[in-house]
């Protein structure tokens, strides 16, 4: 599941920024086999990876099974849909700033499709063991190990990765699910994967204020997860109403508060790192 030695990656959105990110992924060891650009058919990226006009054609010609999207927000929905229609198993969308109405449409469209989406507005996933990264998590801060990491944040994910390493552990797989209110792969999906993954012995979960996804994760943990979980919630001191819009506050009431999320996850048996700079220490303490 997710990524393995058979993973062949297709890249969409190779502007200046996207090209840099793709290069970094190739350097890390990721097997990028195809690039998609409507006007570059026949050309090569980095003198070796062929461009195709459409994702469907790229999949047909190269057998790509994973897609990554760096395209700018106005065109990101279309890129996701194109990759879904091309039947890619996993689609990682890094793009930030996609209108929420677009993501509603994307999620609705994907209901009966076979693709799994990670993101958008996420750093993607990385496997230090396989030396594969789909996205932008810096490879040099990761090391192979048995901690599964799932996070709503971007740079705080890197912070957590670094702390895990400093505490003497490594990562089985890091999954950045992204900070947008409507996103693909959820905490629950990631937890379910880690529970089944034999390379994963413990789990680190990084949550944030807003929404109720952490509470849903807590419910799931109670009945489905046997492995130890360390978590932190960013934003315990965030002023109410500043980041959460009026709308969010209405719907979930006080559910969006960090305190509520911490309570739920603690009740589910997860270990709380009440200081985001002590995630590594908390992890060390439970072993």
């Amino acid at each position, binding site marked *: 599941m997710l990524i393995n030695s058979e993973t062949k990656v297709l890249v969409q959105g190779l502007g200046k920024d996207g090209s840099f990110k793709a290069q970094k992924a190739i350097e890390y060891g990721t097997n990028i086999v195809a690039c998609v650009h409507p006007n570059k058919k026949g050309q090569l990226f980095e003198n070796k990876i062929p461009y195709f006009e459409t994702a469907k054609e790229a999949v047909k010609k190269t057998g790509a099974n994973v897609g990554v999207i760096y395209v700018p927000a106005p065109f990101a929905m279309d890129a996701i849909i194109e990759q879904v229609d091309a039947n890619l198993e996993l689609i990682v969308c890094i793009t930030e700033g996609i209108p929420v109405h677009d993501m509603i449409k994307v999620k609705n469209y994907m209901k009966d499709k076979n693709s799994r989406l990670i993101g958008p507005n996420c750093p993607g996933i990385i496997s230090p063991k396989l030396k594969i990264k789909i996205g932008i998590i810096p490879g040099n801060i990761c090391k192979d190990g048995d901690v599964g990491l799932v996070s709503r944040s971007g740079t705080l994910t890197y912070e957590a990765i670094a702390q895990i390493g400093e505490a003497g552990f490594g990562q089985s797989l890091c999954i950045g699910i992204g900070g947008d209110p409507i996103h693909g792969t959820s905490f629950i999906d990631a937890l379910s994967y880690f529970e089944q993954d034999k390379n994963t012995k413990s789990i680190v979960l990084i949550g944030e204020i807003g929404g109720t996804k952490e509470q849903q994760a807590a419910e799931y943990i109670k009945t489905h997860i046997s492995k130890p979980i360390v978590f932190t919630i960013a934003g315990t001191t965030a002023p109410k109403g500043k980041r959460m819009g009026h*709308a969010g506050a*209405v719907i979930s009431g006080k559910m969006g508060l960090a305190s509520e999320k911490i309570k739920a996850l603690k009740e589910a048996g997860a270990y709380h790192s009440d200081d985001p700079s002590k995630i590594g220490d908390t992890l060390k303490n439970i072993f």
Partner: protein
Amino acid sequence: MNLHEYQARDLLKKYNINFPTGEIGSTPQEIFDISKKFGGEVVAKAQIHSGGRGKAGGVKLCSTPSEAKNFANSILGKKIVTSQTDSEGVIVEKILITNTTIISREIYLSIVIDPDFESPVLIASSEGGTEIEKMAEESPNKITKIAFDPVLGAKPYELRRVISKLEIPKNAIKDFYSLVNNLFKAFIETDSTLIEINPLIIDDNENIVPLDCKINLDDDSYFRQKELFSLRDKNQENPIETRAKDFDLAYVKLDKGNVGCLVNGAGLAMATMDVTTKSGCFPANFLDVGGSTDKEKIKEAFRILVSDENVEYLLINLFAGIARADLIAQGVVEAAEETLFKLPIIVSMRGTNSEEGFEILKRSKLNIHIAKDLGQAANILSEINKANK
């Protein structure tokens, strides 16, 4: 982005949603003239980007044009502080004059995006007029919620349940269906994240009449909603937040505190705040430079941060992935020298080129304190702060 009430009314009119006749004025004389034209009683409403306006004195029932003019005189150009604004309040530059309506009952109606349903939802309560948060706490059983399907909109069989719960008069049921469908259409086509009709009233003829409305637009839809975004009223926003936004930076001003925080990434920004607070200091603000690698942007970020008079220390906490720590350091040094910044700067930098970044900072003449991580940075900060008190 928020719209003013009068802008929201104009927008919804295009979707066949009609409010009591109203007109906007920005001088006492204009308000007088409009009120006179309307004849009889009018309602005068200050146009500000905030709820809780009524309780703060921003709405007045005026029996005569002179009364309306006096009200305008007393409020135009002044700032109103409501339960939803910060302590500075927001300025009143326009007043909306509308006809009065005979209210027999008030209903609450809104459409918001619900991440759990992954769709827009209709929220309705048989008790309108107050804030929905209050209703949610005080009488949650009066609130109904149904999801809109992206294709079907509100399902009629579910809407029937809402209608019965709200006790919509029989003669107004058809209008209620139309109202909800039109609101949903407006919600979708304008990339809204909130459309709130509060109150929606039932008048003495059993008609439903929307009285007040609020629209928030998704900032991320700017690229395709340029016409709507031209309605933006920068005077209602915090000027520093506006300046940051113009540079594509996310700035948040906080109420207390003396630490300016320069961070990258929203999650790390919050974590920085949490750790700082835990160590006994309070952030005055924070500025998220995102995945930016542009030195000019970093310099602007620095300038914005230190323009806050409350800032006594600067905390820089970065985890460079795509961004490069050395470039950021260079930007900080240049901006600090340019602004003659002398206050202590505590720095934690990790990731891409962080060693080079530290070197640049060390070589500068700034009052730099280097930490190996966020935890240590918070400790240093806390110690300096204690020493200074």
